C-alpha cells in the first residue's frame, strides 16, 4: 500500500463522481496575449467592510495616489481596499455593486487625475522577512482568493493545523474562462515566486499544481519554469488532470488529487490540505516581494458579442461597461452579461458596476451560445441530475421538497452540501432551474435558523430578566430581614434591665405557685403584691393576682373571682384599669368555666371601660380566657400534667407582657413584644419537641397548649400594634403572623405524628385557634385607619384561611 505522498508523486488520480462536459469555448479568449485597456475616467471601489470592522481613511475631495489604502481596520477578516489609480475622491455613497442582486454597497468613487502618482511600494526579498511580516504584508495588500470566492488569503496562509499538502489550483474548469490559463502561460515565474512564499509559510510536504488537460501550453510553461526553482524541485509537482466540470471546485480537486473527501461542515485545512488559486499565488508574490497591493487582476472578456475577446489586466473598480466598450461589445435583444462562467456565473442586472477582486470573467454571449429561456417542464424523475451531481446528492428529491417548500425535508437530503455547480440543471431534460430552487431553499433555511437563534436569545433574555427580578425581590426581603434582626438585637441590649426584672418576677411567681400547689392560699398572694407601690408595680400586682387566682381556680373549687374583681379597682391609672379589665376578663372566663353565675359581673365590669384601646384589650383578654377555659376543659377530660403547667405559664408570661407593653409608649414596647414573642416561640418549640418525644397522650396536650400560646402571642402583638402608629409596628405584626403560621405548621406536623385519637382533638383545637387569630387580627385592625393596616388584616385573614385549609388537609391524611 503506497502512502498518499507516494501516490501523489506517482501521479495517481482519483475519481470524482458526477460532473458534466459542457462545451469549453476557451479558444475564444486564449489565442491572444494578455493586454491592457485604455484607463477609465472613474473607478468605483466598494467598501463592504466599512462600518462593520473597518473605517474610512479618506474623505470626499481627498487626493489619493495609486495603491493608497482607503480603509483602516483591525478585524480578523478585515481586508483593506486600495485606490487603483491616482486621483480625487469625488463621492462616497451607496452604489450598485457587482452582484446578482444589484444591491447598493458603500462605494468610494475616484476620478482619475491622469498623473499616475503612486505610493512607494516596498520591495523585499523572501529571506529577510519573517512569517509574521509576510502575513502582515499579505493582509495589508488586501489579498483575497482570486478564484472567485475572495476569501482573505492571510487566514488560509496561517491555518491552525499542520499542512501536509498545498494544491495550487490552475484547473479553471468553467467554460470560456482563460485568465488562469493565460496567467500560467505568461507569468509562470511569478506564480512560482508566490509558491515559494506559500511554501515558506506553510512548509508542506508536497505542493501540487493541478492543471486540466485542455491547457497544454499552460502546463508545459509551468513545467519548464519549475526547473528554474531548485528549492521547489523536490516539493512541487505539476499534475495534469482530465477535463471535467467541476474539477476545479476545491472539494472536487482535493478528491481528485488525494482521493479524500472533505467531511461535511469542515474545511480542507483540518485535513492538512490548503488550496490556493494560481492567481492568488501571483498576487501574493506581488504583495510580499514587490509591496504592491491587489489593485488589478487579469479578467477574461469573452463571448460572441465581444469583438476582441481576450484577457485584460483591469484595475479593480473599472466599470464593466467601460471594459466591454473597450473590447467592442455590442448588445443584442435580451442581452445577458454574465460575471464568471456560464455554469456558475451570475447575470448582471446592469453593467455600470465595478470589476471586483473575484471577477475572473465578463461573458457577453450571443443568443446561440446561451440556452434560450424555456419554460420549466414537469420532472420525469429521470435521475440524470443525480448522476451528474459531484456532491452525490439526489437533486431531484431536493427539488421536490424545495418546490413544495418543505425545507426541513430538503435539509435532510443534505441540501447544505450542494455546491451550486449547476451540473443538475445542465443535464435536466425538463429545463428545471434546479440550482435556483436550492438557492431559495438555502436562504429560507438560513432565515429560519437566524429566526430560531433570535427567538432563543429572546428567551434567554426573558429568563434572565425573570431571574433578576426574583433576585431583587429576595435581596429586598433579605435586607428587611436583616434590618429587623438588627432592630431586635439593639432592642434586646436596650431592654436588658427590664427583661431581667421581669424574669425575676416571673420566677418568683412561679416559685410561689409551686409552693402553693395543692393548697388554697391564693388569697394571700394578691395582698402581698398589692402592697408594692408605683405604676408598674400596680400592674404587676394585678397580673400576679390574676395568676394566683387562676391557679387557685385550677387547683381548688372555691370561687375567688370576687376577690380578683375587687383588687384592681383602686388602681386609678387608665392603663392599670385596662390590665385589670384583662385580668377580670380572664378570671370571669375561668369562673364561667366552673359556674355560670359570674357571667353578669363580667359584663358589668367591661362596660365602664370607655377607652377604645381598653375595649380591644378586653376582647383580647376574652379570647385568651376562652382559650384557657378550653384548655382547662381539655385538661378536665384528661388529667393535668406537668407539661400543662408549663403551658399555662407560657400563656401567663405572654399575658404579662401584653399588659406591660401597653404603657410603654414606643420603642420599649416593641422590644418587649419581640422578647415575649421570642420566649413564646421558644416555649412552644420546647413543647413541640416534648410532644414529639413523649407519648401520644402528652403530645395531644402539648400541641393544644402550643396552639393556645400561639394564638395568644398573636393577640398580644396585635393589641400592642395599635398604639404604635409607625411602620415598624406593622412589620412586627407581619413577623408575628408569620411566626404564628410557623407554629401552626409545627402543630400540624406534630399532629401527623400522633395517633388518630389525638389527631381529632388537635385539629379541632388548631382550627379554633386559627379562627381566633384571624378574629383578633381583624378586630385589632379595624381601629387603625391606615390603609396598610387593612391590607395587613386582609393578609392575616387569608393566612388564617390557608391554615384552616392546611389543617383540613392534615386531617384527611
Amino acid at each position, binding site marked *: 500500500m503506497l502512502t498518499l505522498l507516494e501516490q501523489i508523486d506517482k501521479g495517481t488520480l482519483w475519481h470524482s463522481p458526477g460532473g458534466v462536459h459542457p462545451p469549453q469555448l476557451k479558444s475564444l479568449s486564449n489565442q491572444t496575449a494578455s493586454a491592457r485597456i485604455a484607463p477609465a475616467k472613474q473607478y468605483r471601489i466598494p467598501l463592504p467592510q466599512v462600518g462593520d470592522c473597518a473605517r474610512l481613511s479618506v474623505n470626499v475631495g481627498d487626493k489619493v495616489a495609486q495603491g493608497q489604502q482607503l480603509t483602516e481596520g483591525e478585524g480578523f477578516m478585515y481586508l483593506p481596499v486600495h485606490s487603483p489609480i491616482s486621483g480625487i475622491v469625488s463621492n462616497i455613497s451607496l452604489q450598485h455593486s457587482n452582484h446578482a442582486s444589484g444591491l447598493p454597497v458603500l462605494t468610494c468613487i475616484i476620478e482619475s487625475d491622469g498623473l499616475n502618482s503612486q505610493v512607494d511600494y516596498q520591495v523585499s526579498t523572501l529571506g529577510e522577512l519573517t512569517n509574521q511580516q509576510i502575513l502582515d504584508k499579505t493582509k495589508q495588500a488586501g489579498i483575497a482568493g482570486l478564484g472567485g470566492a475572495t476569501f482573505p488569503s492571510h487566514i488560509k496562509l496561517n491555518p491552525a493545523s499542520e499542512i501536509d499538502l498545498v494544491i495550487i489550483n490552475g484547473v479553471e474548469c468553467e467554460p470560456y474562462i482563460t485568465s488562469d490559463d493565460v496567467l500560467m502561460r505568461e507569468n509562470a515565474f511569478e506564480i512560482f515566486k508566490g509558491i515559494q512564499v506559500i511554501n515558506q509559510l506553510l512548509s508542506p510536504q508536497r505542493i501540487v499544481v493541478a492543471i486540466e488537460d485542455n491547457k497544454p501550453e499552460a502546463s508545459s510553461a509551468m513545467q519548464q519554469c519549475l526547473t528554474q526553482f531548485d528549492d521547489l524541485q523536490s516539493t512541487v509537482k505539476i499534475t495534469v488532470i482530465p477535463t471535467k466540470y467541476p474539477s476545479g471546485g476545491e472539494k472536487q480537486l482535493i478528491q481528485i488529487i488525494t482521493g479524500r473527501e472533505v467531511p461535511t461542515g469542515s474545511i480542507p485545512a483540518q485535513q492538512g490540505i490548503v488550496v490556493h488559486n494560481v492567481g492568488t499565488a501571483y498576487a501574493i508574490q506581488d504583495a510580499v516581494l514587490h509591496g504592491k497591493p491587489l489593485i488589478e487582476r487579469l479578467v477574461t472578456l469573452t463571448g460572441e458579442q465581444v469583438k476582441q475577446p481576450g484577457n485584460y489586466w483591469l484595475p479593480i473598480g473599472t466599470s464593466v461597461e467601460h471594459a466591454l466598450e473597450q473590447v467592442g461589445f455590442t*448588445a443584442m435583444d435580451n442581452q445577458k452579461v454574465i460575471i464568471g462562467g456560464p455554469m456558475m456565473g451570475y*447575470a448582471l442586472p446592469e453593467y455600470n458596476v465595478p470589476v471586483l477582486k473575484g471577477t475572473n470573467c465578463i461573458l457577453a454571449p450571443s443568443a446561440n451560445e446561451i*440556452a434560450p429561456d424555456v419554460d420549466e417542464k414537469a420532472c420525469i424523475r429521470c*435521475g440524470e441530475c443525480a448522476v451528474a451531481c459531484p456532491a452525490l446528492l439526489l437533486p431531484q428529491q431536493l427539488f421536490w421538497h424545495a418546490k413544495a417548500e418543505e425545507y426541513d425535508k430538503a435539509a435532510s437530503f443534505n441540501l447544505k452540501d450542494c455546491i451550486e455547480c449547476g451540473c443538475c440543471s445542465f443535464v435536466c431534460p425538463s429545463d428545471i432551474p434546479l440550482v435556483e430552487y436550492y438557492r431559495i431553499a438555502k436562504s429560507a433555511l438560513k432565515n429560519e435558523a437566524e429566526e430560531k437563534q433570535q427567538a432563543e436569545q429572546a428567551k434567554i433574555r426573558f429568563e434572565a430578566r425573570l431571574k433578576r427580578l426574583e433576585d431583587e425581590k429576595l435581596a429586598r426581603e433579605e435586607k428587611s430581614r436583616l434590618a429587623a434582626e438588627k432592630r431586635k438585637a439593639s432592642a434586646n441590649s436596650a431592654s436588658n434591665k427590664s427583661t431581667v426584672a421581669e424574669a425575676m418576677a416571673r420566677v418568683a411567681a412561679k416559685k410561689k405557685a409551686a409552693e402553693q400547689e395543692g393548697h388554697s392560699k391564693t388569697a394571700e398572694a394578691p395582698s402581698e403584691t398589692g402592697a408594692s407601690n408605683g405604676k408598674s408595680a400596680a400592674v404587676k400586682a394585678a397580673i400576679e393576682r390574676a395568676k394566683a387566682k387562676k391557679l387557685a381556680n385550677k387547683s381548688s373549687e372555691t370561687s375567688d373571682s370576687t376577690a380578683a374583681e375587687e383588687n384592681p379597682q383602686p388602681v386609678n391609672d387608665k392603663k392599670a384599669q385596662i390590665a385589670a379589665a384583662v385580668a377580670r376578663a380572664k378570671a370571669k372566663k375561668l369562673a364561667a368555666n366552673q359556674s355560670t353565675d359570674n357571667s353578669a359581673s363580667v359584663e358589668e365590669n367591661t362596660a365602664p371601660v370607655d377607652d377604645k384601646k381598653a375595649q380591644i384589650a378586653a376582647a383580647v383578654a376574652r379570647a385568651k380566657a376562652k382559650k384557657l377555659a378550653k384548655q382547662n376543659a381539655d385538661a378536665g377530660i384528661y388529667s393535668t400534667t406537668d407539661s400543662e403547667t408549663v403551658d399555662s405559664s407560657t400563656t401567663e408570661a405572654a399575658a404579662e407582657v401584653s399588659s406591660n407593653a401597653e404603657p410603654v409608649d414606643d420603642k420599649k414596647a416593641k422590644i418587649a413584644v419581640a422578647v415575649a414573642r421570642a420566649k413564646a416561640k421558644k416555649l412552644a418549640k420546647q413543647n413541640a419537641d416534648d410532644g414529639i418525644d413523649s407519648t401520644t397522650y402528652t403530645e395531644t396536650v402539648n400541641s393544644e397548649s402550643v396552639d393556645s400560646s400561639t394564638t395568644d402571642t398573636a393577640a398580644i402583638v396585635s393589641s400592642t400594634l395599635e398604639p404604635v402608629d409607625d411602620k415598624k409596628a406593622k412589620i412586627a405584626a407581619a413577623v408575628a403572623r408569620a411566626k404564628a403560621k410557623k407554629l401552626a405548621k409545627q402543630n400540624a406536623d406534630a399532629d401527623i405524628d400522633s395517633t388518630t385519637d389525638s389527631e381529632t382533638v388537635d385539629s379541632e383545637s388548631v382550627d379554633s385557634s386559627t379562627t381566633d387569630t384571624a378574629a383578633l387580627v381583624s378586630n385589632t385592625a379595624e381601629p387603625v385607619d391606615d390603609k396598610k393596616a387593612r391590607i395587613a388584616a386582609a393578609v392575616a385573614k387569608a393566612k388564617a384561611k390557608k391554615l384552616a385549609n392546611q389543617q383540613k388537609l392534615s386531617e384527611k391524611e
Partner: protein
Amino acid sequence: MAFKIASSPHVSTSLQTNKVMQRVALCLIPGILAQVYFFGMGTLVQILIAVITCLSAEAAIMKLRNKSIKNALSDNSALVTAVLIAVAIPPLTPWWMTVIGCFFAIVIVKHLYGGLGNNIFNPAMAAYVLLLVSFPLQMTNWVAPSELAANQVSITAAFAHIFELSTAGLDHFRIAVDGHTMATPLDTFKTDLSMGMTSSESLQRNVFDGMTGVGWFWVNLAYLAGGLIMLKLKVIRWHISVGILMAIFVCSGIGFLLNPDTHASPMLHLFSGGTMLCAFFIATDPVTAATSTRGRLLFGAIIGVLIFVIRTYGGYPDAVAFAVLLANMCAPFIDYYIRPRSYGHRAGN
C-alpha cells in the same frame, strides 16, 4: 442599460424530455417490426388505434386541466404510452378494448395522479392489467406465429378482426380468430406442467423450437437490440435493465438446476413473452421507477424476481405487468431508504 437576468447555469444539454421520449419510441421500431413479421399486421393497427386514442385523451384532459395542450402533446410521453400498450396486447384485440385501455392509461393512471412525472404506476402496464383482468379471454389469445398459422394475418384481415366488421359479437370473434390464435409459449408451458407433463415434454410442442417459443425469441432479441441502442444514446441507464435480467437469470437458473422438470430454463424466461420489452422499455420509465443507481438495481431485481415467481408459481403465464406495478409501489420506499452517501458524509448518513 438593463440586462436579462437568469439563474446559473446559463447553458444546458440539448437532450430535452420530448427528444428522450421520441428516442424511446424510435428504439421500439426493431421490436415492432419483429412482432409484425411473426404475428401479422394486427400490431400496426393496434398502434394506430392506441396513438389516436392516447393523444386525444391527453389533449382532452389537458383542456380540462386548463393547461397547454401543445406542451403536453409535444413531450411525446403519451405517444410512448400508446405504442407500449399496442405492442403489449394481443394483435387482434378488438378495437374497443384498446380504446378502453388507452383511455384508462392516460386519464386515470396518468392525469388523475397529476400528469407527467407524478403518476405512481406505469400507465401502459396499468392499462394492460385492467384489460387482462376484465377480458381474460381476448387477452390470452395471442396470434399464432406465422410459421405455425394456417394463413398470415394481412392488413385487411387485421382491420376486419379488430373492428369486427363482418358481424359483431364475441362468438364471432372466437370463431374468426380461431384460425389465427393460440396460447403463448409461456401459457402452453404452464398448462402442460399443471397437467403433469415435464418441461422437456412440453418443449416438444410445436410452439417451441427446442429452447424458446417460435417467433418470441426473435421478438425479444429485437427489443434487446432497441434497448442497447437506448443505452448507447444515454436515453436510459443500465441499472434497471440489468437488475431485471440478472434477477430472472439467477432465479430461473437456480430453479432449473434444482428441478429441470418443473422449471423453465433461463433461456425460456429471458426470451419469452415481454421480458426484453419490460427490461428496456417498460420498467425503465423513469417516472415510476426508483431514482438512485443502487435503488434502480434493487427496483429491477424486484421486478425480475416477481416475474419469475409469478410465472412459476402464480396464476398468470406472463407476469411483466403485475411485476412492474408491484415494483412501482415499492419505488418511493426504495428512494427513501436507499440514498447515496453524499460527498463528505460517512456511510449511513
